[in-house]
């Protein structure tokens, strides 16, 4: 496993000299006074926080709190926001190489798995450029599928259509597809919503392993999952950050009344 990961790193690193230089500085993610207004509605209000260099940060809150919008801002899928988002001091708006290059370093896993209508193999390497697809790409594919806890289930049918996989397997395939690009940050938007318990467990195990090397920001409605993921918890409501604490502190001793209400009823009325 370690050998595979090392090989994969070597492969991806050899792809582009520019990418290597960028990789070496990509670490911290910091948001400063980020606000987003869409159609006159304030979606995000002065959001500021930093992700630790490694570990999981769970972003929780009621529906409409702005959690998913925040992820879209981070990947520049939504670019109407004000404020600043930087990765190791470099603003993502002025990223050298442009927004497409930036997105290669930010893995995004959506709530609903979106696989392309092609084989499992092609899906995994979809984000790799021709330059990056070398003779060792099978090693990279195996490594990323292993990291996504999918290798054992699909290694003998890599060239079958990805659409035939179960939803849980498709979600892990999306994870593998993001991981093969060796992202420095992983953003997950309710990655286990509507998955069966087994798939949920497998993904959580993968996230724990990945969090040892990179920061993960995971939007979730599942409070038990946020507890299981440990790390840091950010509670958002009505476009604002209400509380930020470690998972243990947040779930055992929430400091804000809104947090306590949310944990008690899983509802929020903080507008």
């Amino acid at each position, binding site marked *: 496993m370690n050998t595979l990961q090392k090989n994969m790193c070597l492969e991806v690193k050899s792809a582009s000299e520019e990418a290597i230089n960028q990789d070496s500085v990509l670490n911290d993610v910091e948001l400063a006074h980020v606000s987003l207004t869409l159609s006159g509605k304030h979606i995000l209000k002065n959001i500021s926080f930093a992700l630790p260099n490694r570990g999981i940060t769970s972003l929780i809150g009621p529906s409409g709190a702005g959690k998913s919008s925040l992820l879209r801002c981070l990947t520049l899928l939504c670019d109407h926001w004000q404020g600043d988002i930087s990765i190791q001091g470099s603003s993502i708006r002025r990223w050298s190489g442009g927004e*497409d290059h*930036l*997105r290669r370093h930010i893995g995004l896993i*959506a709530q609903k798995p*979106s696989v392309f209508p092609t084989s499992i193999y092609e899906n995994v390497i*979809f984000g790799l450029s021709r330059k990056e697809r070398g003779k060792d790409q099978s090693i990279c594919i195996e490594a990323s599928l292993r990291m996504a806890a999918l290798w054992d289930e699909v290694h003998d049918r890599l060239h079958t259509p990805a659409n035939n996989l179960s939803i849980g397997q498709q979600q892990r395939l999306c994870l593998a597809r993001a991981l093969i690009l060796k992202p420095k940050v992983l953003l997950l938007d309710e990655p286990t919503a509507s998955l069966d318990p087994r798939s949920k467990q497998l993904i959580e195990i993968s996230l724990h392993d990945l969090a040892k090397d990179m920061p993960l920001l995971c939007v979730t409605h599942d409070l038990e999952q946020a507890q299981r993921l440990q790390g840091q918890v950010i509670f958002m409501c009505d476009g604002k950050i209400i509380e930020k604490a470690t998972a243990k502190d947040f779930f055992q001793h929430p400091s804000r009344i809104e947090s306590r209400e949310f944990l008690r009823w899983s509802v929020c009325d903080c507008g």
Partner: protein
Amino acid sequence: MKHMGNTPLVYLLIITGCVLAISCISVLLWFLGDASWQFWQAFGLSPLWADEWYPYESLYGLLPAIIGSFWVMIIAMMIAVPCGLSAAIVSSEILPLSWQSWIRMGMEILAGIPSVVYGLIGLWVLLPWLQNIFDLLTGHSLLAAGMILSLMILPTMMVMAQDALRLIPLEQRETAMSLGLNWNQRLCRILLPQAWPGIRSGILLGLGRALGETMAVMLVVGSLDRVPQPIYNILEPAQTLTSRIGREMGEAAFGSMHFSALMACGLVLAATAIFLSLLSQQHRGRLNV
């Protein structure tokens, strides 16, 4: 079927529809076959590659018209496919949503204009223009017919390509974006491959219309029963199967060999159109569209 409910009534309606459709096609083919039987019986398949058409001397070569139809169809497709596809990509992927409905409305209006109007436009605008540019005698040519046809099939092809592109889920586009694919890569690796079945259906539908169009083609093609010399000379006046039928049917006595020969032209056209339609359906089925 499942979401419609598997009731006997639904099955009955489907079976009735299928039987009706198959019956209509069978009756059409039977009618054409029967009306042209006299011709096939007298000459066999040899008129398909004979190049002289003089009905009063009992010469019924279909080759010039077949070649004319083929060239007109090819020219129309060569112009309409890239233009229609580009227009569909621009309107569905680049222009704002509010513009899309205007463009679609324009295309639907274009599709609804009677073909004779296109023919008249060709007659008064396109022919003098081609005459001047290529120093032709009249401007009547395969190129003129192909250009007019391309304008006529462009709306169908564009609207079908636009629909096919719009059917691709937003998640697929965003997933591709989140993987760092640029616009060109998204277009070539996600949008066009996924929209291809719909685009191909549009092309085959356009092909069918190009093959079957009569009035506009008749006005600009020149109706000269001769194989172009050389065969790729698209600046020569020529004949197509449809324009021959349209032009001569009024002169042919019912039940005569001339009438039967024109029916044979119709049978060739119908068979080609059905073949193209089946080809389109086969691709749809294979690609599960």
